Every structure is written in C-alpha cells, then in structure tokens.
C-alpha cells in the first residue's frame, strides 16, 4: 500500500513490476490510468491545471487505500496522482491493485477510483480559448459511491 502525489509522470509497467517484485502469490493485477482529454463538453482543452491540498491529499488517498484493503483480499496497491499543469494525452492518475483473484483486483480498483473522484481534494481547471475554467463536480461521480455502501 503506497500513495504518491507528484508533478512527475509515471510508468505503469514499472509500477506493476514493483508491486509484484519477488513474490509469486499474486494472481491478478488491475490498473486504472486516467488521461487528460483534448475536449470536454464539445470544447477544446489546451491544458489542465490540477490543484490539491497538500497533507490532506495524501491522508485521504491512504485512507481510501486502507478501506479497500479491509473490503477485499488485497496483496498490494498503489495510487499515484499528479498535480500541476498537464497537456492533453498526459497521465493524471494511476491506481493499481493486486490480489490472488481477479474479481477482488477489479472491484477494489473501481472502488478506489470512485472514492478518489469524490473524496480526494483535487481540483481541475481546464484551459480553453475563453480562459481557465474550473471543472464542475459530476452528480454521476457522487452517485457512483452508492453501490459501495
């Protein structure tokens, strides 16, 4: 279980290798990678600025990861979230989960992403022709949490 909040890019393959290095008990690894898209709601996006709450961010991600590991049989997990200015196509976030079984790896990765989306203190500002625009929270993201109750 480990969490990084960083400016730098990351390598998903290297993260999977690190998760499973030296062990032979892992049967399934699931990763989610979120990327900056060049359009949003029909509008062109030149870049995406990510702000966060240093201190609270790391705590909230560690809490989400810990909650996932009480709900599923997790052998390892990793959350990386970037902040700062990112261009379209850039990686924003990665979640990786490792378990003996595929169902647990899939569900825990979805759970972590759902909670991260609605509970971790990050804010996105999209660069558009009309200037910077703070992204509105989506009701669908809040509703996604209901299935985990």
């Amino acid at each position: 279980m480990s969490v990084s909040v960083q400016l730098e890019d990351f390598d998903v393959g290297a993260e999977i290798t690190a998760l499973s290095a030296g062990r032979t008990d892992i049967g399934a690894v699931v990763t989610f990678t979120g990327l900056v898209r060049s359009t949003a709601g029909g509008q062109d996006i030149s870049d995406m600025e990510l702000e966060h709450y240093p201190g609270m961010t790391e705590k909230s991600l560690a809490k989400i990861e810990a909650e996932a590991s009480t709900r599923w049989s997790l052998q390892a997990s990793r959350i990386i979230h970037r902040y700062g200015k990112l261009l379209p196509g850039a990686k924003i976030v990665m979640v990786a989960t490792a378990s003996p079984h595929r169902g647990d790896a899939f569900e825990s990765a979805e759970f972590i992403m759902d909670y991260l989306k609605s509970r971790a203190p990050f804010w996105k500002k999209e660069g558009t022709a009309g200037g910077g625009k703070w992204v509105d929270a989506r009701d669908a993201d809040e509703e996604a949490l209901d299935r985990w109750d």
Partner: protein
Amino acid sequence: MKVLYFAWVRERIGLPREDIETNAATVAELVTELRAREERYDLAFSDMDVVRVALDQELSELGASLVGVREVAFFPPVTGG
C-alpha cells in the same frame, strides 16, 4: 486559526491561506463572520451548497464545532481522478 482556500474559493478570496482570530463556535458562524468582513468573502461563500469544508484535513460539515480545530479549509466539490 489557520484558514485555507482552494480552487475558485481561493481565487474569489484572493489568497490561499490566512490566520484568523475568531470566537466562532461552528463552521457556519465562521462563514457568517467572514462574509460580514469583506465583499470578496461574501462572494466566495454566497452559495454554501457548492462549498465543502475540511477540519484538520478531514471532510466535515457546516454545523461542525470548531473547538480544538487548528486548520479549516474551504473548497469546491472535488474533481480529481
């Protein structure tokens, strides 16, 4: 008490953090106090439905007590991931 602002709350208030002397017993009282101070606070907190609060880096509620709290943060609903 340390007060932090993020995203458009920060932009409206015009600064990321400040130290505030207050006797407010709850978050709601602190908001009322700030809104009375200057228009930029009044603007930032005009619709509290779209403002979230964290006390000592834990998500909380408007009605929560400020007793013993060292750090209050105001921000919009989060949009990471």
